[in-house]
């Protein structure tokens, strides 16, 4: 029960990030919103593993934690004329 409420709160957090992604005046704002979404999503996946009671699902969260920052770094390097 209480876990479901947690999930809904996280859903609300994602909605807020989407609002920033739509509004954001500059590309950097949107990139920050995307970066936040990835962090929130990692937490969501871990909690969902708890809901589904499958230990192996943590691997997916691990992939998120490891890989998601690469997209942000790519966008950031593009914005500072790096690549």
């Amino acid at each position, binding site marked *: 029960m209480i876990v479901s409420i947690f999930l809904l709160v996280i859903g609300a957090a994602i909605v807020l990030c989407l609002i920033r992604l739509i509004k954001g005046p500059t590309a950097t704002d949107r990139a920050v919103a995307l970066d936040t979404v990835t962090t929130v999503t990692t937490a969501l996946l871990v909690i969902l593993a708890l809901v589904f009671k499958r230990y*192996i699902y943590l*691997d997916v969260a691990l992939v998120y934690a*490891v890989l998601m920052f690469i997209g942000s*770094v790519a966008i950031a390097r593009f914005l500072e*004329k*790096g690549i």
Partner: protein
Amino acid sequence: MRILISCVLLVILSLGLVFALEQAPFGSNQIDNADKPGRFYLNQGMEKTGAANVVTSVVVTYRGFDTLGEVTILFIAAIGLGAVFHSRKKVKRYEKEKQSASLILQTGCRFLFPLIVLFGTYVFIHGHLSPGGGFQGGVIIASAFLLLFLGCEEKKIPMKSMNTVESLAGIIFVGIGLAGLYWGESFLENFLPRGMDYMLLSGGVIPIIYIAIGFKVGAELAGIVAGLIERNP
């Protein structure tokens, strides 16, 4: 006008799809029957192949030919990209206003690169026990190389050894298939003993094929990324 026509087309298509999908008995109905492949894989896949992850056993053995084709498609993309970008006249490298990465990013990339490669290796070695497998592991390794490109430019990928790895992995995949034809009865048959359940050494040829796929996918995607980045307009 163009927008109108495409809207009409798309509305027709979406109505058709929604209508059709409402009609079709999806979900549990169609695999309850025991002679359907899905039910068969679930009931007997674990006993026959010894791989705890049924998706893996489907991908690698039962539908292994699809996987071979799919690896081939990545290979085509990699060499096709090379062929498209091949130009004889040397363009002189232009490096206008190229900012180098900050110290934090460089250090972070150097530190994280081996960790990510290690994690990718974990993912494809454990493909038959947990979610993940050759493609996912390969993509993770390719992402590590991508990070190297983004973070520290001075590190260069040795493309020649990449090509060798790619080629060898492909030959190993085909070779295992032919070995199945030789020792077993059909191409890509699982001819090794299935081993203990839930242990690393289980599932017969599945881990070997997945390791080959992992190396191949990783090398191909890294090659694609390198080709795209190093193209100078």
